[in-house]
């Protein structure tokens, strides 16, 4: 029993370490990627012992600054809620990672370790519940700040969350129908099959429409451009106007964490999670007949590497999108959510059902 607990703690530690560092790393990536896109150099002055390393220490400098800044709670604000709100944001963003499988089983001796913090059999429900609860922190922040602009930001976040949560959920329905499971680990395992003997049965190939709907709606969930209406620095500054110091930093961190969550989810649901094409537990089986045996631990490691590479790729794409697309107007946002994504997702579910019915009859 103790060993199981220890293994889970270690796994959770690994995930937390990776995810929090990746979120911190995002501040550097955001600066540098936007700089390169806009023909600039980007932050490059912070140095430790004279080493600048392309400005990678600016993230550290930021955190130092945020921690040493005065923490201001505005007069008339609800002190408790005002303090709890950023913790809510970060907490719900972090616990989502528990259900995401980042690798297949690792066999050490006679012990089989699932490379997943929590093997929940309705993991998808859990993930979406936590993603939706993430907006709680934003609403609380807007509500507790006693500031009209913060409240506006919170309200915007609520409306946006409700609108896009629906499209998000329905787009996922197609994936669940194709793979017939809500367990993310099982879902990834099911994506290891081959279509027609050569094409991996990844979600992107079986549900391409759902993929685009999912990514759009999920980007809206992360509250980043082009869906950053709750924040909108140029109009209302957003739900965290009244926050300073590390509390503000936590909202920022939650933003990046949600980006990572969404990247991981897109990988898990549509890009085969930890699947490496043609890699089965005993080695590579290429469609032209060649086989290449691989030890079990290398297989597990390759899975984790594959998941990381795909996740990082999505982080990159989201960042690129964030610096490409301008912010929506509010009516455009609602129109896109209700008149664009929602019907498309519903039609996709119906079509998937019909196709599955016919495929099921033929087989």
């Amino acid at each position, binding site marked *: 029993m103790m060993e199981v607990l220890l293994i889970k703690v270690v796994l959770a530690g690994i995930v937390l370490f990776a995810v929090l560092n990746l979120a911190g790393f995002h501040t550097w990536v955001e600066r540098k990627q936007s700089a390169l*896109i806009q*023909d600039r*150099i980007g932050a*490059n002055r912070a140095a430790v012992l004279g080493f600048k390393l392309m400005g990678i220490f600016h993230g550290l400098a930021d955190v130092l600054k945020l921690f040493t800044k005065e923490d201001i709670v505005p007069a008339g604000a609800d002190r408790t809620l005002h303090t709890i709100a950023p913790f809510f944001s970060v907490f719900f963003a972090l616990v989502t990672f528990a259900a995401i499988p980042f690798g297949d089983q690792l066999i050490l001796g006679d012990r089989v370790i699932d490379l997943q913090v929590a093997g929940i059999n309705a993991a998808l429900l859990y993930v979406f519940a936590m993603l939706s609860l993430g907006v709680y922190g934003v609403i609380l922040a807007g509500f507790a700040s006693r500031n009209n602009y913060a409240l506006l930001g919170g309200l915007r976040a609520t409306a946006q969350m409700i609108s896009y949560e629906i499209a998000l959920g329905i787009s996922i329905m197609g994936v669940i129908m194709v793979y017939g499971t809500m367990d993310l680990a099982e879902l990834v395992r099911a994506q290891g099959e081959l279509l027609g003997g050569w094409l991996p049965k990844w979600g992107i190939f079986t549900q391409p429409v759902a993929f685009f709907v999912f990514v759009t709606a999920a980007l809206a969930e992360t509250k980043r451009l082009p869906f950053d209406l709750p924040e909108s620095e140029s109009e209302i500054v957003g739900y965290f106007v009244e926050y300073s110091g590390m509390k503000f930093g936590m909202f920022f961190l939650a933003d990046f964490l949600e980006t990572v969550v969404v990247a991981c989810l897109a990988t898990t649901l549509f890009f085969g999670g930890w699947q490496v094409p043609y890699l089965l537990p005993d080695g590579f089986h290429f469609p032209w007949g060649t086989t290449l045996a691989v030890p079990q631990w290398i297989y597990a490691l390759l899975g984790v590497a594959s998941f990381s590479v795909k996740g990082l790729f999505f982080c990159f794409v989201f960042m690129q999108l964030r610096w*490409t697309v301008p912010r929506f107007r509010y009516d455009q946002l609602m129109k896109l959510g209700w008149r*664009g994504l929602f019907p498309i997702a519903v039609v996709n579910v119906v079509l998937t059902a019909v196709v599955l019915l016919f495929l099921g009859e033929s087989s």
Partner: protein
Amino acid sequence: MAVKTVRRPELTFWEKLYLPQIFCGLKITSVHFFRNLFLHTAHLMGRLTHLRAAATYQYPEELRPLMSRYRSRHRLTLREDGTPRCVGCMLCETVCPARCITIVPDEHPDPNVEKYPIRFDIDLGVCVYCGYCVEVCPEDAIRMDTGILDLAAYSREAMQLDIHELMDPKLRKPIGECKLTFPHRCSLSGGEMKGSWEGIAGSQGR
């Protein structure tokens, strides 16, 4: 009254789909991103340095090229013996719209030259960089071609350039030592000045 009807351009079908346009945008940003990434990597290895990866300049280390007619900080040109070409004719002080120039002339030891400045101050905090002083000078004694742009100082007093800094733009802080080769009474070294401040135009309140 003529009425001009402005029609908003209609979106085509592909533009209404929105997704293809996002990919077009992604193409533009990605081209910039990967081009600059490639160039930065090449620069790290010392290659392709003739191609700039960024449109910006890393200012204190890397100075922007200036046009030859750019009006930067002033300097006083010198004769071959190192004395200022200025003959103290007061034309620049007269033409200066901001009244930032203060000249105290004195009799030149050379009988062929009438006067020379024992004091030539320019208050950079007041100067508007119009370049009239350069245009008006009959002796080509003042120019604005040093290329020095950083004029920040901690006080208004420090914004004033005296004759030494004007003759040798590398000197930023006023120094007491007189660099002139013929007798020159320097106010900064505590020497007595000839002429009085009171009678000089534009010097009220000094």
